[in-house]
Every structure is written in C-alpha cells, then in structure tokens.
C-alpha cells in the first residue's frame, strides 16, 4: 500500500503558521510522527526564509510599473508592426491582382474599343475601387485608433 502523509498535516502546518492551535491539533502534532517531521522541516525552511528576507532588496514598485508600461508599449508596437506588414502584403497582392485583371482585360478588347469600354465601365469600376480602398483604409485605421485609445487610457500619453 502506498504510504501517504497524515491527513491532519495541512491543518497542523496552517495552525503553526497562524499560531492558532486547537487543543486537539496540538495534541495530535505532539504525537504524530509525520506531523512532527513536517513541523521540523517547516521550522528549518522558515529560518531559511528569514535569512533570505535579510538579503532581499526588491526594486521600487514605481520602477516595476514603468517597466510594465514600456513592455506594454513594445507589445503594442510589435502588434501594430505586424498589422502594418500584413496590410502592406495584402495591398501588394491587391495591386498585383488588379494589374493582372486590367492587363487581361486590356488584351481582350480591341485597341479601338478601349475608349468606349472604359467610358461604359468607368463609373462602376470607380465605385468598386473606391469601396475596396475604403475597406482597406478602415481596416488599417480601426486597430490603430483602438490602440491609441488603450494607450491613452493606460497613461502612456501623459
């Protein structure tokens, strides 16, 4: 059978920590070998903790806050950079596809018909192009404005 610790050990340690013993727990701790061993180890570790505390010299909380804000800004910049790279790549793809489509259309029509074709399609084509451009601009601008608002809220612009 697997050897397990005493079921009261956790309670004994917490009582020792808090200094709030019940008579039953105190009696148990005095008699139980497991709990006694746990208490002795806890005392040794607590002494080690006290020694560690003497050496502890944590930095100022203000400095930690500033560092976390710097990190937040760096993360936001990295995200924004990734977004801009993605937008640039999408724009390049869009330009390539649009250029291919236009060249293909250009090759298919007779040279003399160009003027009339362009004339007939100009308004529809312009509307479509303007819509695509607007979607791209909004998609790019929305996260930038959102990020700006978050940074303003976090006090980065103060």
């Amino acid at each position, binding site marked *: 059978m697997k050897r*397990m*610790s005493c079921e009261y050990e956790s309670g004994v340690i*917490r009582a020792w920590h808090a200094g709030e013993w019940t008579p039953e727990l105190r009696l148990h701790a005095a008699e139980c070998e497991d709990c006694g061993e746990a208490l002795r180890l806890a005392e040794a*570790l607590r002494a080690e*903790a006290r020694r560690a505390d003497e050496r*502890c010299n*944590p930095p100022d909380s203000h400095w930690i806050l500033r560092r976390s804000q710097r*990190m937040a800004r760096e993360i936001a910049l990295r995200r924004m950079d990734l977004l801009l790279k993605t937008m640039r790549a999408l724009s390049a793809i869009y330009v390539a596809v649009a250029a291919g489509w236009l060249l293909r259309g250009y090759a298919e029509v007779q040279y003399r018909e160009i003027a009339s074709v362009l004339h007939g399609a100009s308004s529809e084509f312009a509307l479509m192009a303007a819509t695509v451009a607007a979607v791209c601009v909004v998609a790019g601008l929305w996260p930038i404005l959102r990020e700006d608002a978050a940074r303003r809220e976090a*006090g980065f612009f103060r």
Partner: protein
Amino acid sequence: MEDAGMIASWIASGRERTAADEEGFKRLYEATSRPLWGYLQHVSGRPDVADDLLQETYCRFLLRKIPATDEARTRSYLFRIATNLLHDRFRSRDDAALEEPAECGVETDEAARLDVRAAMRQLKPRERELLWLAYVEGMSHAEIAAATGLGAMSIRILLYRARQKASGFLRPRRIQS
C-alpha cells in the same frame, strides 16, 4: 484606507487601472514581493535569478488581463507566474547554472544555512517549490495546485515524498534543534 482595502480596490479595478492606482499596486507589491523573492531565490538557488524573475513576474502580472479577484487569489496568481517563469528558466538554461547559490549578505547561522541549502540543492525544483509553498507560505493543497499547475489530488503524495526526501538530507542535529 487600510492596506488590504487598497489592495482589494486595486485588484477590483481590473484593467481599467491607470497611473492613479499606483498606490494600490505599491501596497500589493510591498505585501507580496519579499515572499515571492524568497520563493524564487530558494527554488532557483540564486539571488540574481530571483531579482530578475521577480521583476518579470510583476511585469507579466500587470500586462495580463486578469479577472477582478481577491488578494489570496492574486497572491496565488503571482506565484503561478513566478513558477512558470522558473520552469521556463530551467528549460532554457543549463540546470547546473541555477544550482550553485551565490554567496552574499550576512549569515547568522552558517551551519543551519548550509544544512538547509545543501538539502534543498539535492531536491528537484518541483520538490523545492512544493516544500516552500506548503511550509513557508502555508498554502493549502488547493492553493499549491493553483500556484504550480499540478493536480490538486497529486499534491499530497508529491509533498509527502518531497518532505521525506528533504528530511533525509537534513542532518539529524539540525532537525532536532
């Protein structure tokens, strides 16, 4: 306002907090940084690593979107971040580099210090974590599970084994003192 109230207020403000909440964070930091540093120093065995990871722990804590919660859970959350950082450190670096404690500060009880440190150095990092959280921080098994990411059911047996091992390494004269 009392410290506990300020800390609770700061935690409850969640991610909407701004620089105006610095005082609340300061109280939380003052209440938790020293125990956290002790834990990091004990498990890593090096004060410089503890310094580094302490800062990283609070920075990550501030960056993450944690739900509003109470002080005990925040403390447990901080220990969880610290434990994860320790594991990252152990994974990314040569373990031996973390095993040799740097000597600094004034030692009052050299023999006892060497006993405990020597014993702890022979334990695995996970065992050191469990012993420290249970016996120094006084965490319950559920709290240890939350702080280490281990299953709550396995804490008892793992802790028992770690204690047996540590007691075996400690010199009897030290344990009996």
